[in-house]
């Protein structure tokens, strides 16, 4: 059965209104989020991923609220959600292998270390990362490599919903290509992927649906191709701003 992530009248206000009565049903597709407050897109994604508690409303995954405390039931919910951070996110006092094993060991304690290492080296290979960095601390690596490792760590646990916060920021061309390839593969596998991107417009073109937010409220959603043809001032303003970047 295909997994669904449902935002139900979500309301979240920080200094500005980030989400206002936002309702949307996400099903096995690639979604881009575009808003008139791009600097707050990280927080919008975090609310949808259950990392930040909304002021009102619920985010439901299979009927379970994704923002909950850390009980057994909720652990099963979080196992299905992956989040690729814009920057940072790797534990600085652990080496790369230990970093990759944290969520893997937590969610799959039954899998042997050898099998885990095998899967890790397969994914590292896919991103063109040398296995010798497994013993290095994140601080010793380039920002692009650190970013690629965030993807490796997320994909290892095979989540059913993946959030990408500025996935191409700080990425080398090679890593960018690998990310594209994997996102396309997951798109075919009907994995829910939700992103916000400020560097590269290509991903929006690839998205099945781009959701537009105006001051945190749902404005409209469609493919990027259709939205580009829109005459509405708000839509043309958002798209021209994105294309200019």
């Amino acid at each position, binding site marked *: 059965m295909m997994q669904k992530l449902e935002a139900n009248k979500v309301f979240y206000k920080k200094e500005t209104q980030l989400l206002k009565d936002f309702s949307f049903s996400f099903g096995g597709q690639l979604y881009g989020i575009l808003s008139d407050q791009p600097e707050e897109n990280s927080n919008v994604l975090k609310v949808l991923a259950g990392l930040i508690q909304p002021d009102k409303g619920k985010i439901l995954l299979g009927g379970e609220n994704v923002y909950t405390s850390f009980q057994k039931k909720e652990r099963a919910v979080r196992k299905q959600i992956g*989040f690729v*951070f814009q*920057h940072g996110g790797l534990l600085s006092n652990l080496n790369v292998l230990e970093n990759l094993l944290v969520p893997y060991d937590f969610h799959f304690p039954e899998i042997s270390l050898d099998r885990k290492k095998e899967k890790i080296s397969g994914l590292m290979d896919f991103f063109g990362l040398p296995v010798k960095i497994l013993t290095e601390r994140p601080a010793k690596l380039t920002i692009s490599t650190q970013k690629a490792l965030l993807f490796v760590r997320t994909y290892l646990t095979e989540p059913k919903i993946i959030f990408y916060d500025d996935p191409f920021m700080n990425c080398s061309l090679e890593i960018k290509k690998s990310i594209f390839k994997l996102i396309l593969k997951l798109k075919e596998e009907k994995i829910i992927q939700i992103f916000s991107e400020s560097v590269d417009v290509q991903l929006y073109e690839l998205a099945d649906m781009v959701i537009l937010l105006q001051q945190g409220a749902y404005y409209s959603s469609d493919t990027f191709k259709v939205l580009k043809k829109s005459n509405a001032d708000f839509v043309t303003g958002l798209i021209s701003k994105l294309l200019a970047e």
Partner: protein
Amino acid sequence: MVQKISLAFANRVRLFYSKTTSVVSFVFEILYELKNFFLQRKITRLILIRQILFTGFEALGLISFVAVAVGGIIILEGSAILPGFGQSKLLYTILVTVILRELGGLLTAFIIIARSGTAIATELGNMVVNQEVESLVSFGISPVLYLVVPRVLGVVLSMMALTIYFNVAALAGGWFMAYLFAPIPILDFLTKLFSEISVIDVISSFIKSLFFGFVVAVVSSYQGLQVNFASTEVPQRTIKGVVLSLSWVILFDILLTAIIYLV
């Protein structure tokens, strides 16, 4: 004017209440996650081992130096003052009272605050800024379970072991100094010393080290996790952690001494 003052007072009370509730719920969360720590030892064991190595093992040199010096100084001062009052035999009583009951635990706690308390607050603060704490939440791992509980356990265990070590080293330092001035066989020294040590002194030292370790680890972890987004907050929170740890350790010391020896 009166309205302004009462409003400011009400705000202070509200702030105090919210801070107290936040700290109390943090402590309860730690106690709650303690049981999960053993279930999740595959991912938390490494943090615990590293904390014990850093707080306990790597502090041995400094603890040895301070303990031997303090033990020696007490004997030196005592040997200089007490014979003038004809109370030389009180030297052992003073050594045991000062080291075992008070200074052993207190000085060990101060050293742990300076080394590990600051390290914990800084490390956790930087982890918040670097989105490392948020990444744990995204896996479904409780930051309290993964980051705080192993540190609390590591500091408490190290504190208890180091306090015992401090007491032994300080008493040894006392014997060494006494031996330099008036050679005394170790057996005589130990016999006189043990005649002054009561079971309650040992229990008191043990209970105090347990409380001090818990207080230092909890306060430092709490302050570290209070950092929001800016790295400039990290040193501010670290300093606050040190000041609060020192204050709470001294307050607990007074309280525990009163309960154990006066009640």
